[in-house]
């Protein structure tokens, strides 16, 4: 879906639903996932249809994912870090953190 213009100087690796995602240092979780071809990050808690990042600056909340067990994290506002465990947000915005 997205590709890099410059070779990254350093990498981080995190887990997305069992898959290893290699990202550049400084990538948001959303950017890293888009670079890895993942576009849909959650389903609408109301209609169930897939949703994906829209604004990438923290306004639309369409990028909500579960990070290290905490639901409703904004993938576009969270820097990718080594060893993170990221999952798609399921159904209703999920239980409280």
């Amino acid at each position, binding site marked *: 879906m997205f590709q890099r213009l*410059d070779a990254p100087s350093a990498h981080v690796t995190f887990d997305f639903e069992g898959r290893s995602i290699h990202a550049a240092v*400084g990538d948001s979780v959303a950017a890293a996932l*888009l670079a890895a071809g993942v576009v849909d990050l959650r389903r609408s808690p109301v209609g169930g249809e897939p949703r994906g990042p829209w604004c990438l600056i923290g306004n639309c*909340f369409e990028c909500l994912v579960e990070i290290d067990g905490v639901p*409703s994290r*904004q993938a576009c506002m969270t820097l990718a870090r080594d060893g993170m465990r990221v999952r798609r947000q399921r159904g209703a*915005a999920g239980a409280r953190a």
Partner: protein
Amino acid sequence: MSAPMELAVVGAGPAGMGAAAQAAELGVDVTLLDEQPAPGGQIYRGVDRVLGERPETARVLGEDYRRGASLTAALRRSGARHLADTAVWDLSVRDPDSGALLPAGEGLTLGLLRAGRAEVRRARVVVVASGAMERPVPVPGWTMPGVMSAGGVQTLLKASGLVPGVPTAVVGSGPLVYLVAWQLARAGVSLAAVWVTVPWARRLEAAPAMLAAVGEYGQIAKGLRWRRELRAMGVPLREGVRDVRVVGSERAEGVVGQVGNTEQRVAAGLVVVHEGVIPSIALPRAAGCALHHDALRAAWAPRTDRFGATSVDGVLVAGDAGGVAGALAAEAAGRLAGLEAARRLGRIDAGTRDRLALAPRRALERALRVRPFLDRLFRPRAEVLAPVDEAVVACRCEGVTVATLRRLARAGCAGPNQAKAFSRCGMGPCQGRMCESTVAGVLAAGLRRDVESVGGYRVRAPVKPLTVGELAGLAGLDTPPEIVGGVPIGARRRA
């Protein structure tokens, strides 16, 4: 609670950097807060890293982007303290402990989130330089994955050096449409279509305003150059496109639109949409600043005086947050707010402020000359503000359609806050950012009133999502004001 800040500036874009540097140069103890990892704001996001480490990204972004480095350098020289990765989730005139109004002159309360910990800090003066956000683009299919805003795509480019690797369509109105298309084309992205939705008639409407731009045609010339170069690069650029919709099943597969007299369909794996930017005013709203609705720009903005002072004592607004006018205007307005902050904090008197204000005031006035033209040319079309297609989703979070809003209007619904109670629109995690203009637009059209009288959503802290874990760190707060539980608001009700 930690020690009060003397001047807190929220947002490290051109406006916030200008305000912070100006006040710090005059001896004010400045704390500049921004949720981004580095200064730059939207236009110059990531500028130091890109110029230092990513030559191809820097080339693609173009000359204007480089200017940001001089602002970040001036900021560093000024001695202002920059707290990166710090989101501001509240601005209030209340004492966080008692909830009582702080006496005039006693300063403001800010809620901050840093490194997973919420904290509450006092500041004597606050400059809100939170910039702008993109207007929602409520067209059929806009909720599908694979539809992104132009600013979003640009954010991926600036922050991560990413460009689309699939055939891409760019659709909409505003300078950013041309700019982003031009940047993507320079990066070698396959542009399946660039469809500009500015109606032809807008050019006639805007033409007289060219006079006001005398001497400042640079911006217009730049726009014309982007267009020319897009054509020269062989990009299929079409203007005056109407009735655009995104097609696909589970994700975007292309766009359909009325191009001239024919309906065209273009396949694209990524559809980039944009219909202009509007001020980000969650914080001034939370603080209770008086707002006005600008009918031409179809957006709310805080009322301010010539230095950016709002109706709330101690709160100033600078840059796009006070009305969208672009980066050069933001930088100058930031300087003006920085001067006024320094005056309020006793570093300079009014005479010195006015003398030092001459240069930034001139810069601001020059930068504003082209706005009447741009505002008229790119004035949002009626169907962007109030879509006619009833199936269009207005509130993405709660799945509320235009049909529902029209029904509410027919039933005499008074405004967005009442619509919220009846339909849940605006109750999701985005707190209404993505639907307010559509909800107000459809209600206003249905009620035959103007948006100003229909009003906007009431906004309450936290204006940024907080988890219970983050709130647990809140020291010195017995009864968090109106914050019950944190987490995006939509999540709370279903928990």
